[in-house]
Structures are given as structure tokens and as C-alpha cells.
């Protein structure tokens, strides 16, 4: 049965040209992918990449701005999810989901949580309540069966002992498992899991892997999961899709995705520090490795880094050595560099979007301590500054100067605000 399903080439879910806009914000931009039947598909990407939005579109909580979501059930029926109400998607198209911030019925018992999930079949067997109210035997039998089904899932997630405790009383990991079991009680053909391993320890995470694999083996349910925990993703998924800023940047087996330069850039490009650390690490171990690492980074950035390669170890050393003393101004400083921050206190340059702690430290080393200094930069200064920062073109792209002007103005107004803004 299972193998038959596996070999079935038709995808369980087809996402075509999916776009979702919130006002001016484009959360998903023309996304296309397929989830194979009986497979575990992982959806990964940095925070804010639009992964949960994709889930909300699949499960009907959001109506996509554009695009088509086709769910094909095992019996061949096709459903266009974007046209269906959320509860109908679960009921008819057999898609179930869990939530990033666990949504259990905390005041109901563990068992009751699983019974609520069997609402629709029970409703039918109770003759829409009327037959059940009159005590017809069909409902009694269905109710007993429902409890048996719940017991099956409780055994599976190892919570039989706690069946009669309120769900809100369970420890975190158990709540996550219960939420999955609850979703499974709706007999889904596609299970969407939103960060199932978040907040789990290593052992729980391993147990979760087993649970998901056994769900796939035993019920043939296809799974799509959003996950940040790469150990989970790499270990169990058959197929990985990577999103960044609402677009798909990679798609394939875990192996291919892992080695896709775009993916690494996307993941590493988020924080300056990570890139620099990688390079520092590479520089320390040898130049062969650094080229390997650098290969992975996207074009312009790579050039920039190789140019400054020689300087990197120095910077790394300076980082540790120069910390207690006031940093000396380095060569290549911009025109308005200062020897030390005014009044001995520098502004928090990381407030400028795009400047991380590493770049802030670099700027400080080059005599830039205040917003107004950045605000006053001319074109030449920008070039000079970019020479020692992680990426070029970035200062203009992220409008550091504009941001700095705003911040400089704000910080001037600050003392007055402090006086009236104090507590009490």
C-alpha cells in the first residue's frame, strides 16, 4: 500500500504562482513547488521568509492574492484550496496543520483534545446531534471507536498515562506531540507542521523524528514541515524547499540544497557576523578552505572579501587585543574620523539597519562613533568606509546616511525626552 503510494508520481500538493501581499508588503512572490505524495517536504528559510504565510495559504487561514493551490487526494479528487474556507480544507481536502505557537485546548483533557479533532465523523454518526441526544446505538459505537482511535494516537505519542489531565498541564514537548496527534486524528492526507521541533531538547527532537517517520510509514500521510532545526530537516526530509524574502531560491534533496551556494548565502547573509566568522575561521585554517567557503557566497560580496582577506586576521586579532584600550584609528579612515568618541560615549551604531556588531566595531576602529559622523559622509567617505566593511554597495543600498541623519536628530532630542519620559 505504502510503496504503491510512494511510486505514485502525482504530487499531493501543487503550489503554482502563489503570491500573498499585505498592503505593500510582498510576503510571498510567485512561489511554485510540489509536495510529493508520501514524502516529507521541508520548507526552510530565514525568519520572515514567508514560510508560515505559505502554510496559512495552504490551510485557508489567508486567501492568497494570486495563485493556485491544488490538493490531490488519494482517491484522485482534486481540490483548489485557495477557493475553500479553512475548515472545509481540513474536512474535505484532508489537510491538517499544527501551529508555531502551540494551540491546544488547554482547559480540555488530552483525550478531549483528540476527540474534538474527530468532530466531523462523530457529528455524522450522531445524526447531527439529534440521534445522539436520543441515545441511538450508532453514536455510542462511534463514540467508543473515537476513544479507541484517540488511545492509539496517545500510545504513539507516549501520553496514555496523562490522557485525563488538562492539555495545558503537559510539559512543552508533550504539548507539541499532542498537537501532532490531534492533527492526525482528523485523518489527514497532508499534514502541515509549523516548526514542530521548536523548543524541544535533543532527545525530544529525536523522538519527534521517529514519530514523523512512523506517521509516514504507517498512514502514508504526506508531510510538509517548516523547521529551523537542521538536524530534523536533514535527517527526515525527502525534499527541501528554501525560501528567502518570499521567493523560492532552492528546491531539491537535502544534499543538493545543502550545497547550493544561494542557500548558504541566504543563510549566512543574514548576519554580518556569521559571514565574518566563517571567513575568520577559514583564514585561520588555511586558504584552501577559504576559497571553498568563498565560492559559496554570491559574486560581488566574494570579490570584496577576497580583497580584504589579508586584513581579516589582523582585524580578528585587533578585536581581542584592542578591547580594553581606546582603539587607534586605522589607515583608510574617512575624513571626519575622531580619535575617541565625544564625551567618552559612542552612539549605538547597530541602530542603523544593516550595521551589525561586527561592522560597528570596525567603524569604531576607524574612528566613527556617532550618527552625525555617518550622516555627514560624502561619496569618498562611503568608498573609504566600504573598503573596510563586509560588503560594498551596502551603505547606499540600505541608506545608512539617511538612517544616521534621522538617528542623529533623534539623539539630539533625547535629553529632553528623558526628563519627561522618566518613570513615575
Amino acid at each position, binding site marked *: 500500500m505504502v510503496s504503491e503510494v510512494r511510486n505514485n508520481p502525482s504530487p499531493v500538493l501543487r503550489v503554482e504562482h502563489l503570491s500573498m501581499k499585505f498592503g505593500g508588503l510582498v510576503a510571498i512572490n510567485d512561489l511554485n513547488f510540489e509536495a510529493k505524495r508520501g514524502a516529507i517536504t521541508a520548507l526552510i528559510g530565514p525568519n520572515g521568509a514567508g514560510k508560515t504565510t505559505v502554510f496559512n495559504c495552504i*490551510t485557508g*487561514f489567508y486567501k492568497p492574492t494570486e495563485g493556485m493551490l491544488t490538493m490531490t487526494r488519494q482517491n484522485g479528487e482534486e481540490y483548489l484550496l485557495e477557493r475553500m474556507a*479553512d*475548515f*472545509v*480544507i*481540513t*474536512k474535505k481536502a484532508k489537510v*491538517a*496543520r499544527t*501551529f508555531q505557537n502551540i*494551540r*491546544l*485546548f*488547554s*482547559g*480540555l*483533557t488530552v*483525550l*478531549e483534545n483528540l*476527540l*474534538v*479533532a*474527530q*468532530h*466531523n465523523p*462523530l*457529528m455524522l454518526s*450522531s445524526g447531527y*446531534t439529534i440521534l*445522539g*441526544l436520543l441515545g441511538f446505538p450508532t*453514536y455510542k459505537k462511534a*463514540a467508543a471507536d473515537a*476513544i479507541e482511535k*484517540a*488511545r492509539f494516537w*496517545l500510545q504513539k505519542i507516549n501520553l*496514555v498515562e496523562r*490522557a*485525563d*489531565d*488538562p*492539555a*495545558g*498541564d503537559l510539559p512543552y514537548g508533550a504539548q507539541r506531540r499532542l498537537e501532532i496527534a*490531534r*492533527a492526525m486524528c*482528523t485523518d489527514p492526507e497532508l499534514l502541515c507542521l509549523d516548526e514542530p521541533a521548536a523548543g524541544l531538547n535533543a532527545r525530544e527532537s529525536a523522538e519527534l523524528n521517529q514519530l514523523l517517520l512512523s506517521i509516514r510509514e504507517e498512514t502514508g500521510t504526506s508531510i510538509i514541515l517548516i523547521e529551523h532545526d537542521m538536524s530534523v530537516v536533514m535527517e527526515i526530509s525527502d525534499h527541501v524547499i528554501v525560501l528567502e524574502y518570499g521567493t523560492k531560491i532552492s528546491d531539491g534533496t537535502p544534499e543538493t540544497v545543502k550545497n547550493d551556494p544561494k542557500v548558504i548565502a541566504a543563510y549566512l547573509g543574514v548576519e554580518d557576523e556569521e559571514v565574518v566568522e566563517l571567513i575568520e575561521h577559514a583564514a585561520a585554517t588555511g586558504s584552501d578552505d577559504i576559497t571553498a567557503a568563498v565560492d559559496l557566497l554570491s559574486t560581488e560580496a566574494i570579490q570584496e572579501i577576497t580583497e580584504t582577506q589579508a586584513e581579516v586576521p589582523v582585524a580578528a586579532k585587533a578585536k581581542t587585543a584592542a578591547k580594553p584600550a581606546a582603539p587607534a584609528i586605522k589607515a583608510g579612515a574617512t575624513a571626519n574620523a575622531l580619535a575617541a568618541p565625544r564625551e567618552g560615549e559612542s552612539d549605538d551604531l547597530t541602530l542603523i539597519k544593516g550595521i551589525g556588531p561586527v561592522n560597528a566595531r570596525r567603524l569604531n576602529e576607524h574612528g566613527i562613533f556617532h550618527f552625525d559622523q555617518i550622516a555627514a559622509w560624502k561619496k569618498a567617505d562611503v568608498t573609504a568606509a566600504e573598503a573596510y566593511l563586509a560588503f560594498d554597495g551596502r551603505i547606499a543600498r540600505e541608506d545608512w546616511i539617511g538612517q544616521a541623519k534621522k538617528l542623529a536628530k533623534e539623539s539630539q532630542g533625547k535629553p529632553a525626552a528623558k526628563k519627561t519620559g522618566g518613570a513615575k
Partner: protein
Amino acid sequence: MADIQSSGQDSVYAKAAKEAVFAGIIAFGLFFLVVGFRTDQNINNELVLVQRWGLLAIFVAVAAIGRFIFAAFITPSREQAKLAKSKAPAAAKVDRRSLKAAVSRFGLALLFIYPFVVILILALIQFAVTGQWSFQSGVQGSLKYVDNFGIQILIYVMLAWGLNIVVGLAGLLDLGYVAFYAVGAYSYALLSAHFGLSFWLLLPMAGIFAAMWGIVLGFPVLRLRGDYLAIVTLAFGEIIRLVLINWTVVTKGTFGISGIAKATLFGIPFTPGPTGFAAMFGLPNSGVYYKIFLYYLILFLALLTAWVTIRLRRMPIGRAWEALREDEIACRSLGINTTTTKLTAFATGAMFGGFAGSFFAARQGFVSPESFVFLESAIILAIVVLGGMGSLIGIAIAAAVMIGGTELLRELEFLKLIFGNDFTPELYRMLLFGLAMIVVMVWKPRGFVGNREPSAFLHERKMISSEFTKEGHG
């Protein structure tokens, strides 16, 4: 050691004294105008001021002394009790459930024999006073107790149990429940006046009408959440009342509809004539039989409400209601149609309100918009919350305490002996009712019975502490 304790004690008193003075000053500020002066009309219909400094002094003194007692004795003793409780090893848990079962069984038995107990007690009192065994006088005297206490309380019990489905189970805040009560009452009054239909036919019809109104009113507003839903239900309650007042052609406005047909015992009327109940059973003529009949009727209706509620809680729809109260989004993710689920809750609650309304009309023989003001909705809601949302027993207790308590105030004629003949205890009825609501709520924010009983179990039925249950958002 003893020193420290006594000095600690002194400081407690000093602090209490300080707080008492503060409370006195506040009380003076609060009551200075409204109690210190009374406004009365003179012969020319002009307002004149009457000064009441003595009364003001009493108010201030009561506030100050009350505060002192509270700060000096009650708070420390409560803190000590709390400390002792936390230190003491967890006491063996009393088996609450068997206790609860015993209480409910006893309560149910008492409800069934209540009219006869009242008659017997009154006859005994009569016997003790006059030395004559007169059963008939006991029967006559019981009228008041069966009517004012028995029926009155049971009506509220039934209404509160009906509202409990909406508020307690589904977590939808309905501030206009009295509208459905009014729909039931007016359906019975109008249909029996114009078409001469019997009570037993109109009772279910009134319920169905009310349920339909529940759906009609519910449908457009159910996508509203929380307090928006509350104000719209309140508005609907007011709209229905205002329409009843102003649509005089049909409803006769504030005059109300009188001469509504009484209920019959399956065709046997409670009239003095030869075909009446008394004549049929060879009993002397009396209004008591009708009252006792009404008592059992409302008891039956209330128990029907309870039975349906208990059954529904074990059905998928009941579980869906409670799940809806806990988390609406999760419900939708499990394939539950939240709109119909909400609507069924609304309609079921409204239906019981309609039943109660038609009973009310049959009992009073008169309906007017006066009986369906917002205050009634508020009282019913208060009973649900004070009793503990979702708990049938708690709600019954709350209704008995709140409604019985205020009815009892009507009976305190002896207070006139203390406060003089001008004193009318009835005037203080609603004042005390309001204050009691506040005190009970502050004392037990989750109501008398806050625990929730699960609807199904695998090993054993454990009560769920109120800290886990949610109260709904819409």
C-alpha cells in the same frame, strides 16, 4: 521573640489605625454630598435640602471601623492561614466528586418534595401555635413560599442554565439574553390570545421562535469578537424591548398583555368550575394546586435544560462549543465550522430562554416590556458567572443564593421593629443584590464551582482546575 511579635502586633494596629483614618476621610468625601444632604420636594414642587449630618457620621464611622477591623484582624489572620497552608503538607484530598454527587442527589430529592415539605412545615407551625391540626391552612400558607421562592428561583435557574450554553460552554458573551425570554413570553401571550392555542402546543413553539430569533440575530454578528459581540447582543436586547414598548398595535405597549390563558394539566384546567382540577380530584377549591403544578412544570423544564446540557456536552457539538471557547483558530484547523457551531450554541441557549419565557407568561397571566429590561440579562449573566461558568450545580447554587436572598429581603418585616415603621427593607433589595455580586466575585472570581468536569475519560474522571480553562473571546 515575644517582644518582636508584640511590637509587630503594635505596628499592625498602628497601620490599621492609619488606614482607618484614611478610609474615614475617603468615606467623608464620598458621602458628604449624597448622604449629608437629602433633596426633597416641598409643596411648590421645588427641591429643598435636608441636612443629615448624623447619618453621614454613621457612614464615615462604619467605613473607618470596618477598615480598621479588616486591616488589624482579618488580613493578618488570612495571611497566617495562607502561611500555615503553604507550610502544611498537602492535605489528603477529600473526594470531592462523591461529595458533589451526594449534594446533587440530595438537592434533587429536596426539589421534588419541596412543596410538600413547605406545606408540612407550615401545618406543623400552625399546629404548634393554635393546637389545631389544619392541613388546609398549611396549603394556603405555602402559596407564597412555593411561588416566590420555588418557582421564582427555578425560573432563574433555568434561564441561567440556558445562558450557560452560550456563555459558559461556547464562551460567547451575550448581554441580551433576556430578548429570547421576551420572545418566548410574547409568542405565548399573543398566540394564545389571538388563536386560543394551548400551552402545551405553544411551549415548544415559543422555544422554536426564540431559537429562530437566536439564529436571525446571531448570524450577522457572529463574526464579531469579544466585547463587540457583547454590545451588539445588548443592543438587540434593547431593540426588542423598545419594539415591544412602541409597537402598540400588537403588543399594547407598556400596558402589556393581560388575561393570558393559564396552563393546563394535559387538558384539565385549574379553574374552580366542575371540570376543574380541584373538582375532578375531589379537593377543596384553592389556587395552590395551580402553583404547585407550575412548580413541577418549571422544575421539569429546568431539569430538561440540565439534561440536554449534560447530554450535549458529551456529544461532538458540545465538545466543539468548549473547544471554541478555548481556541477558535485551532477549531477551524480541525475542520469545525465555527459559524454553525456558534449559531447552534446561540439557538440552543435562545430556545431554553423561549421555553422559560412562555412559562413566565403562563405563570403571570400578564406580560409587559417591564419584565425584560437589561437588568434581567445582567442578573442571569451574573448568576452564570457567580456559579462558575459551565457548572450546572454552581449555577443552581448561585441562583438560589442571589434570587432567594433578595426574595428573603421582602420577608424581613420584623426589621421595622428596629428601624421604625418608615423602614422598607424592600428598598434595599437591589442595593444589597449589587453589593453581593461584587463581594462574591471578589471572593471567588471563578465562581462557586470553578472546576470543569471532563466530558470523556480514559482512566478516571478528574476535575480540571479553573486555571487551565479559558473564557472565550467572542
